[in-house]
C-alpha cells in the first residue's frame, strides 16, 4: 500500500489540470496553443474516445490483475460486484452520500460508485476481501468484532476500510480524528460508539466502557 499517492486519473493531476485550462484559455490565447498541446501530450497522451460498447479494461484488485470487457459507463463498484464478482463492497446510494462502496485506491479511501472502472486502471485497488491475508484478520477487523462495531454489517466493509485508511496515515488517532475520518460513512444500525472504540483499540489505545449492568436488587 502506498498511502500518499494521488488516488486516480480523474483526481486533479497534471494532465487533467492542463486539459481543464485547455478548453477555455487555449481558445483565446492562440499563441500558447502549440506549447500547451505539447505540454498536454507530454503529461500523458489522451486516450481515443471509448464506448459506448464494451471495451477492454484491466484492473488490479487485491494484488491480482483481472481483465474485463466493460462499457465505459460501468462504475468501479459495478465492475467489482457484478463482473469480478467481489460482493463485499456494497452499494447503498450510488451517489457519493454513504461510503458503503468504499475501497482503497493506492491506499486512499475512495467511493467506488463515483469512479468509472476505466479510470481505475493502472492503480492498486484494495477491497474488503483483500485486507485479511491467509485468513488472518487485521487488527482493525479484529477490533471491530471485539468492540461489536458491526450490527447488520452492511456498512461494515466501508467502515473497516475507512478506519484502515485512517490508521495507515495516523497510527494514534484521537476520538475527533476518528469522527472526521469516518464521517463519510453512514450506519443506519447505529454502531458509531463502537466504531470509535474499535479504531482506538486497533491503534493500541485504551477504550472506555459505556455500559453498566445493574443486577437485581442493587437499585432501590
Amino acid at each position, binding site marked *: 500500500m502506498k498511502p500518499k499517492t494521488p488516488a486516480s486519473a480523474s483526481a486533479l493531476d497534471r494532465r487533467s489540470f492542463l486539459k481543464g485550462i485547455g478548453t477555455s484559455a487555449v481558445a483565446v490565447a492562440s499563441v500558447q496553443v502549440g506549447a500547451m498541446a505539447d505540454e498536454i501530450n507530454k503529461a500523458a497522451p489522451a486516450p481515443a474516445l471509448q464506448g459506448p460498447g464494451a471495451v477492454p479494461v484491466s484492473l488490479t484488485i487485491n494484488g491480482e490483475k483481472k481483465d474485463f470487457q466493460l462499457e465505459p459507463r460501468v462504475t468501479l463498484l459495478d465492475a467489482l460486484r457484478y463482473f469480478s464478482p467481489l460482493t463485499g463492497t456494497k452499494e447503498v446510494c450510488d451517489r457519493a452520500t454513504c461510503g458503503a462502496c468504499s475501497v482503497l485506491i493506492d491506499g486512499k479511501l475512495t467511493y467506488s460508485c463515483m469512479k468509472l472502472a476505466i479510470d481505475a486502471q493502472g492503480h492498486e485497488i484494495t477491497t474488503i476481501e483483500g485486507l485479511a491475508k491467509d485468513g488472518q484478520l487485521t487488527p482493525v477487523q479484529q477490533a471491530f468484532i471485539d468492540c461489536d462495531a458491526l450490527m447488520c454489517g452492511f456498512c461494515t466493509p466501508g467502515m473497516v476500510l475507512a478506519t484502515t485508511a485512517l490508521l495507515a496515515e495516523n497510527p494514534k488517532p484521537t476520538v475527533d480524528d476518528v469522527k472526521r475520518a469516518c464521517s463519510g460513512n453512514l450506519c443506519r444500525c*447505529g454502531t458509531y460508539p463502537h466504531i470509535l472504540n474499535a479504531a482506538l483499540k486497533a491503534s493500541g489505545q485504551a477504550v472506555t466502557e459505556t455500559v453498566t449492568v445493574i443486577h437485581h436488587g442493587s437499585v432501590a
Partner: protein
Amino acid sequence: MAAWPNPTQVMGKPATRLDGPAKVTGSAKYSYDVQPDGWLFGMILCSKWPAATITKIDLTKAQGMPGVKAAVLAGGEQRTVRFYGQELAAVAATTKQQCLDAIRAIEITATPLPFVVKEDDAMKPDAPLVADGPNVSDPSVKAEGQVDAAMAAAAAVCEGELRTPVQLHHALETHGSTVSYKDNHLTAWTSTQGVFSVRDAFAGAMQMPQSNIEVICDYMGGGFGAKFGAGVHGGLAAKLSQAAGAPVKVMLTRLQEGLSAGNRPSSIQKIKFGADKDGKLVAATVENHGSPGISGSRKTAGGGGGANIATPYLYHFPNINVQQYGVLMNTGPASAFRAPGHPPASFGTESMMDELAVKLGMDPLQFRLLNDDNPVRQREYKEGAERFGWATKYQKPGSSPGPVKTGVGCAGGGWGGGGKGSEAEAQINPDGTVEVRCGTQDLGTGSRTLVAIVAAEAFGLKPEQIKVKIGDTNLPFSGGSGGSSTSASVSPAIWDACQNALAALQQQTGVPDARGANWFDTCKKLGINPLSARGKWQEGLSGSGAGGVNFAEVEVDTETGFIRIKKIVAVHDCGLIVNPLTTRSQINGGVLCGIGYALYEERIMDRQTGVLLNTSFDSYKIANIADCPDIDVILIDLPERGVIGIGEPAVIPPAGAIANAVANAIGVRIHSLPITPAKVLAALGKVPNMPSV
C-alpha cells in the same frame, strides 16, 4: 413451568458475534449479493406522477433491447396510480446498464390527475380525493371520565400542537429479492425480517403451494419494521424469473426505497393536559391527525400502516378524550417502523409534560416520578438521574448564560417485547459438534449469536462451539422479527430443544450429566448416528413489558441555531440479559435513530409536483459518527422476568428528551420535529418562520 438456570454460565456474559468474521471480511452474503448461476438483473419502472390514469404501457421496444430477457407489468395496463414511485413495470436483462436502457424505452400514456402530498392540504374540504372516500377518516375515539369539568377545575393547563414528520426507514440494504422460479418451485433470497411471512406472500402472489417455496435470508442489511412481505418488487422478481427462465435479482434503488418501501406516519397532535395543584395529572384531550400516505387504501404486510399513535403516552389521566384521524395523501404507503406509534407519542406527550411542569413550578423529573406509576421506570429515572447528575444540571428554562446555551431534558417509553411460537431443533454429532436450527433471522440484532449462547448454556459449551442455522423456511418455524419479539420467542425454543437433546443423549449413553467436561466423551458413545431433538417456546422463560428512560444534555448555539448533543444516558430493562454486548449495541442504535428523528430526519414532498425532494442521504439526513454523542447505557438486569426484547424500547425516548433539553436551553419550545437550526433561530425571533415547500 420451565426456568432458566440460576446463576447462568454463558447467558449474561458479553459474547462477540458468531458472524463477525464474515461481516468484517466481506464474505457475508446478503440477499443483494447472492448471484445464482445465470442470474439476471431486474429493475422496476415507477410512476413519475403522484396521481394519474394510465391508459397504455408499451413494453415492445424495451423487450427488443440488447440483453433484455423479460419485461412484465406490475398491475394492469390500464390503471390509476396514486403516488410518485408506484410500481408500473419491470424488466430483466443481463446487465444493470441494459436494464437502465430498457426502463427508459418503456412507453407510457397517462393523464395526470390532481393530487395532494401535504397533510394540511389533504385535510382541506376542497382537497383532491386520494381514494374513493374522504381523505380524512372517521376518528377512533377513547373517552373516559368528565374531561371538560376536570379541565376547568385543573390548577394548571397547558396546550400545544406538536408535529412529527414522516420518517423513512432507509435500511442500508434496500428491499429486494433474488428469485429463482423453475417448474412451479420457487427459491427466494429476500432481505426480510420474516422468511415465513415472505414465503406465504410469494405463495399468494404466484398462486403456488407454500411447500414449493423456500425463502432464505442468511444476512440482511437492516429492516427496522418495513421488511415483512415479499413486496410488489418481490412479486415482480418472481414474474420476471418465470418469464425469463432464469433467476432474477430485483433490489430497490435508494430513490425507490424512499418512495414505496414504507415509512413512519406523520402526526399533528393537538394536546391539552391539566394537573391539580399537587402536580397530579387530571385530564387530557388529544386530537391527532396522522398520515400513512395511501396506506388507508393499500394494506401493507406486517401491519402498522395505520397512523394512530399512543398519545397521551405512559401517564394515567382519569379524565380523557382522544380522537385519532388518518389522513390519506398521494405518497407511498406507511409500514411498521421501530416501535410504531411510540416515538411521536413520547415526543408529544413528554413535551407537554415539561411545559406543564414549568407552569406548576416543578422539576420535570419530580413531575414524572409523581405521575408515572410504572415501578421499573421509577427505578430507571432514579438511577439515570444520579448517573446523569440531574440534580445539579437541571436549571430553570432559558437560564443558561452566553450565546451557547446548555439544557437538559428527560423522557420515557414503554414497550411489550414479548414473543412466543418459535420452534427449534438441536443436533448432537458423535464428534461432539452441535448444530442448532431455527427459522428465525438476524437483522443485525445478534439473534444468530443469541441462539448459540442459549445452546452453549444448555450444553456447558462455548458459543463459538455451536453451529447455528437460521434464515430459511426449511428450518423449524419461527415468526417474523417484529415488535422486539425475537429474543423472547427464540431463546425458550432453543433452550427446550437443547434440553430435549441433552435428555436423550444422557438416556442413550447412560451418562448422568453429559455437560461441560464430559461432553466429548459422552457424544462419542453415540456411535455413528447423530441425535436430534425438537423443542418449542415454553412458558416461564420469557416475559414482556419493558420500560426505558433517556436523559439528554444539549448545547444550542443561539447565533447559528446549531444543536450539539453532549450526552445521552439511556436506562433500560429487558429482563434476563442474554448478551450485554449486543444489547448495548441495540440501545446505542435506538438512541442514534432517535437522534435522527429529533434533529435531522424528515421526508420532504414537493407541493407543486408531488415528488420526493430529499432522495438520498445528501438531503435526507441521518445521524453520522460526528453527530454521535457520549451515550451512557445502563441496563437493569431482571432475570426473574425471563428474556424480553429491547430493539424497540431504545428508539422511543430520545426525541422527547432532546426536545425537552433544547427547550430547557433556550427557554422557548420548538413544537415540531426535526428541530433544525432554522427552527431554533425562528423560535428565538432571529429569522422569520420558514414556509413549507
